[in-house]
């Protein structure tokens, strides 16, 4: 009976190869996504209308269009322009676009969350704009922004499952392959669900602890 209940665990080794791919993809996407987010957040308050509009369009498309469609735009769309990125690169490009858009919103609202009086006071004591941002605004905005930014990282770890549709060998691709060989669909996808949950749940708990910790100092 116990053996039957735990039969799904036999698939964990085969799927764990996908975990490495999923985690490394998440790492790359998050680093690039935060960078893009920073650039977009800065561009979206630019005084140049053109830059502002371009940034807003990139953000709105990145947040409003299904990630699966973004993935197809890159993977099946770029060949139309004679560009043929690999499946992994396509997934990284599409996910970075989306992660950048979400991060830009978080960064923008975190900076907005710092009361105006703070930058006024910084200017009043003679700081220039760069110093006021570096020493006064940024340290306070980071406390607000870090938990949601880390939640974006957890979200995108889950989103890597979508890369399965363009044949990236992540967890779901490995699971689907196992399932078609063994016909043991339920157990295989249960094992996949377990692998995602076992990474996501502790990560989420860690972020909410951090959130409570940071909130104390606000």
């Amino acid at each position, binding site marked *: 009976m116990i053996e039957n209940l735990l039969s799904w665990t036999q698939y964990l080794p085969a799927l764990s190869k996908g975990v490495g791919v999923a985690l490394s993809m998440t790492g790359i996407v998050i680093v690039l996504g935060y960078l893009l987010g920073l650039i977009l957040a800065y561009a979206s308050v630019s005084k140049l209308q053109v830059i502002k509009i371009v940034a807003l369009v990139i953000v709105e498309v990145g947040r*409003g269009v299904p990630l*699966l469609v973004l993935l197809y*735009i890159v993977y*099946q769309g770029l060949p*139309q322009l004679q560009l043929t990125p690999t499946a992994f690169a396509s997934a990284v490009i599409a996910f970075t676009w989306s992660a950048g858009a979400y991060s830009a919103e978080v960064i923008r609202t975190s900076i907005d969350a710092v009361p105006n009086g703070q930058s006024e006071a910084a200017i009043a004591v003679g700081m220039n704009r760069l110093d006021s941002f570096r020493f006064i605004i940024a340290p306070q905005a980071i406390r607000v922004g870090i938990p949601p930014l880390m939640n974006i990282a957890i979200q995108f770890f889950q989103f890597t*499952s*979508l890369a399965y*549709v363009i044949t990236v060998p992540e967890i779901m691709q490995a699971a689907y392959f196992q399932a078609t060989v063994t016909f043991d669909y339920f157990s295989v996808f249960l094992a996949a669900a377990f692998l*995602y949950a076992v990474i996501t749940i502790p990560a989420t708990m860690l972020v909410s602890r951090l959130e409570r910790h940071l909130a104390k100092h606000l």
Partner: protein
Amino acid sequence: MLGVVGYIALGIGATLLITASAFTIGGILAIPLALAQRSRFAILRLLVRGVVNLVRAVPPLVWLFLVFFGFAELGLRMSPLMAAIATFSFIAMSYFAEIYRAGLAALSRGQEEASAALGLSTVDSYRFIVVPQVFRVVGPMMASYGIGLLKDSALASTIGVVELTFRAASQAQQTGQGLTIFAIVGIIYLLLSLPLAIVSRQVDSRLRARFSVA
């Protein structure tokens, strides 16, 4: 090109059907879950919390495959459309339960105490005092989750539901015009989410004008 767009646009029906069904079914099933989280019995609270967290910890695609392929293996065979509606209703249920819980938590405890003091029954207190106030907090959150649901419904294409993304993918393969086709589909999704986005913003600003909800 116009014929292609027309063919793809026929998928709007299936996309909206999945979104609206999951929104409605999930929204209703979440009510008992949200109330259970305020139960006196710690076991019930823990159980519901556990389920809600577990559902959200696993990607929607995995749930979709577990329901469509996994349940079929166990003898519960569903059409792709049914499987998609069932899966997204189940996922929406746990998100809505969390949204309702947050809404109830935002309501001052004094409201319920006051209605009890006035002699209102539990049902009446929920009907006339709690729900109308909670809805104002929860409405915008539900609208933005609705947009998320619309986007997630694209996943149904992976199990063969002939909706927007499925039709687009098949056309892209036939014509080799992936960029044009998926750009059009992207715009269709943005247009479809526009009404919800407007509702979410309007409700929000009307609320802020009438109540000072934090």
